[in-house]
């Protein structure tokens, strides 16, 4: 089989595959997907309750099933990091000192101590990560970058009236997205061209820190110069097409939210609110103690 040389960079570019399976989720208004995505991340990160995290996980998996993309694909993203995940969780469980009230140690040995809190922290680490990975994979399967930038611009548009540069920001993101493949191409070109002149990017040899940095110059300097040249060309083109900022522009694309989109929004928000309530009302503590009494009651 082909032993690919180090120069074929484009293969690495596929971050988040868009899968055109045209499911219900695909058709949801991108603004709503964007809002739910952000809320999901905030909830996953902010709600320190195992039960909330589990609820979010269930919701995300349900969403994934709706996209008609193979569930397996979403989970394969987790494989490369599974080990690290476990190790870091173990660090949380055993080694990280807790601030605040000293909880009673369930187990202790020298500087390692396990408490209820630390176990929760470890489990949470894993759950949060999985929720966010699956959640963002879910969105990346069914939203194109174009839809995304439209979504961003539409959400921010009302702020344009108070002088917030909504369109400018959306345009910046758009330009960044457009330029990624262009600059990748330039990077690849430079690597090939300089290698043809005998350049050795041999990172392996350790011949002095600053000397090794010098080896980067034939790549970095022209790459940056090209980037700026492209930037200049693009700004000329934008000027020539009369761009004067977001104010007063009309819009070719208008996103219109339909009933189905609002239902999706409602569903998403209610899940997140439930998760929030579980956390704020310490419901898992409640359920845990209920469970303990049940067990004790059962045993007796």
């Amino acid at each position, binding site marked *: 089989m082909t032993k690919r040389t180090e120069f074929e960079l484009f293969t690495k570019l596929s971050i988040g595959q868009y899968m055109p399976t045209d499911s219900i989720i695909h058709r949801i208004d991108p603004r709503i997907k964007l809002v739910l995505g952000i809320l999901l991340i905030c909830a996953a990160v902010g709600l320190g309750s195992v039960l909330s995290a589990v609820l979010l996980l269930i919701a995300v998996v349900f969403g994934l099933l709706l996209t008609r993309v193979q569930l397996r694909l979403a989970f394969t993203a987790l494989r490369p990091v599974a080990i690290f995940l476990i190790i870091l969780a173990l660090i949380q469980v055993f080694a990280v000192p807790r601030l605040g009230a000293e909880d009673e140690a369930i187990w202790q040995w020298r500087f390692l101590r396990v408490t209820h809190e630390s176990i929760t922290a470890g489990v949470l680490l894993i759950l949060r990560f999985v929720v966010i990975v699956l959640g963002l994979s879910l969105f990346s399967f069914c939203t194109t970058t174009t839809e995304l930038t439209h979504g961003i611009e539409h959400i921010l548009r009302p702020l344009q009236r108070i002088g917030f540069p909504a369109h400018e920001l959306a345009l910046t993101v*758009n*330009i960044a997205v457009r330029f990624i493949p262009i600059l990748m191409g330039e990077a690849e070109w430079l690597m090939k061209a300089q290698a043809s002149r005998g350049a050795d990017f041999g990172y392996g040899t350790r011949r002095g820190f600053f000397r090794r940095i010098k080896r980067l110059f034939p790549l*970095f300097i022209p790459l940056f110069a090209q980037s700026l040249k492209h930037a200049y060309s693009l700004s000329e083109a934008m000027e020539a097409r009369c761009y004067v900022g977001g104010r007063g522009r009309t819009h070719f694309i208008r996103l219109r939210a339909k009933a189905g989109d609002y239902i999706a929004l409602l569903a998403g928000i209610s899940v997140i609110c439930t998760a929030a309530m579980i956390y704020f009302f310490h419901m898992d503590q409640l359920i845990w103690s209920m469970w303990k009494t049940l067990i004790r009651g059962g045993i007796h």
Partner: protein
Amino acid sequence: MVNVENTYKRRNTLMSTNIRKIVIAGVMGALSVVLSVTPLGFFPMPTGVSLTTMHIPVILGAVLEGPVVGVVIGFIFGIFSLLRAAIAPQGPADVWFVNPLVSVLPRLFIGITAWLAYRATRRIHEIPALIIAGIVGSLTNTVLVLGVLGLLRKLPWAGIFGIAAINGLPEAGLSAVVTFVIIASWKKIETRRKGSSI
């Protein structure tokens, strides 16, 4: 062809600074993403861990166009590291980077501090100003990211200081050199000699 360097910031043109800022922000953001996904972004060290270069476009953008542009590029850099950590995680760091407080928030400051450092020292001379901007920007990245990790109790503080020293300092050095060399070459600043070394 139009001589790009000469026309970049002139007065006898009606090209707006806003467009230039938008485009630089977008292009530097793209550059940061490209560095993240190619070997160019990783400078291996004998310690085994690589130094990263993807924060350098943030510094470059801030030095060329100001703090606002720096914040925007930092934002793009941060969001991309979050997305990457979430959608195609590869290493232990990605487990933490799914948290925007770790991946996005600290990166917003890189441009600001780099710009401030640059402006403050520019009166002395351009060359040290670029070097200092590179160092400050890089250290901001290191300190704030590790700081958030520490505050969120993801890592013990002992480990954090270790990483900061072993990785953060050389990374600052790398940033300083790259920032200086790139901007000096772009702005045609005389470095040391007055001719080739042949």
